[in-house]
């Protein structure tokens, strides 16, 4: 039982990992900085580990889906991220993919019940 639990948790991690990018893109129509995004996702019951999220933001920026700017006007400078125009396009497409995928999964899993 021990090993099957382990397997389930590692498979769940993999399932979640696939949704990570879509999740992050969906929250970045407005500017967010690292920690504010962590909190926002936590509040929406979709917590992501900070150690995963921060590097992911940088990767998405490098792929030109996000744009970033440093806000140095406050005492504690923060790096703000938001969707680029390319990011908006990609987000729309991914959302479409997700919807068709989840409705397909929905109907497949229903047959089982």
């Amino acid at each position, binding site marked *: 039982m021990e090993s099957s639990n382990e397997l389930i948790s590692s498979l769940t991690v993999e399932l979640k990992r696939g949704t990570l990018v879509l999740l992050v893109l969906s929250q970045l129509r407005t500017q967010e*900085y*690292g*920690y*504010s995004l*962590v909190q926002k996702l936590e509040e929406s019951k979709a917590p992501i*580990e*900070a*150690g*995963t999220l*921060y*590097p*992911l933001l*940088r*990767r998405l920026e490098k792929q030109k889906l996000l744009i970033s700017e440093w806000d140095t006007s406050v005492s*504690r*400078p*923060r*790096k703000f991220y938001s969707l680029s125009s390319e990011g908006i396009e990609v987000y729309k497409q991914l959302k479409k993919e997700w919807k068709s995928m989840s409705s397909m999964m929905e109907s497949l899993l229903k047959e089982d019940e």
Partner: protein
Amino acid sequence: MKLIDRYVYAVTKYLSEEVREDVGKELRSNIEDMLPDNPSEEEVYKALKQLGNPWKLANEYNPKKQYLIGPGYYNQYLSILKLVVGICITVFIGIAMLAGGIELAKEGFAVDNYSKLISSVISAAFEGAIQGALWVTLVFVILERSGVETGRFPFSNKEWKPEDLPELPIPANRVISRRKTIVSMCCTIFFTALVCFQPHLIAVYFTDNSGSVKVTQLFNLERLDVFIPFIIIVAFVQLGIFLWKYMKGSWNVSLAIGNAVYNLLSSILLIIMVSDKNLFNMNFFYSIAERTNSTNETVLPWIDRGIWVFIAVVVVICIWETGYVFIKCLDLKKK
């Protein structure tokens, strides 16, 4: 706050220089965001614990290919590493014993000379292991980076097609004998190591009337130094092709092209070397002439003729070998 500095440093030291500063700045502000104002040591401790192992975090920041030899080649790399390191150790010990034996014969069989021989054999074994590991690793890094295996031709990364699959069973005339490849690899390593590390051993050894050994070297060592980098390059190319052959086990077109390039390179180098009169120690030939009771004047034209014959033989062998391999490959394609 020292704990935060240490954490940021522990992450950024693994990153490339261009992003180090920016990631550090961002990471620091993220950590500070996680903390209340004027946090206690304990709160900092908890926040860092939550972020986890800095090495792992740095890994997340580094999405690029970060290995020299990837999983695709790893098993082959290990088996060939063992093979080549074994060969190199054997060959280097052989050369050290040869050199030591000659030394012993010259210096006399004293205890001191024996211990010198033993220590040189041990250091030769290490030298062989290190050289072998270095060159195999280098060849595999090139294979990994160039993506030879992913495409039919080197450096093209063409899309894989089912017709690229080798025939089963591999036609007998296309099979490359592994034993022959290993033997050729031994020879290459032996001669390259001999010429590069112990060229003074290539000599004629005559005992004169007083009974002492007179050594006359074939090469002019100073001149030979000029050629050594080229010899190493050619040996390296050849070693790469041997490893490629060993892994593939059968001829294909890209291997045949590689083989042709190697043949061209090696014959150009050999031809330049033999036609360079300064490379050879004329006393070597005079010494042989003396022994065979001929004069220096009668020997000289023979040396010239010898060089021409040698060049002709090299060219013929290279063309024949290159052509033979190509015919094997093309012949098979037609069927």
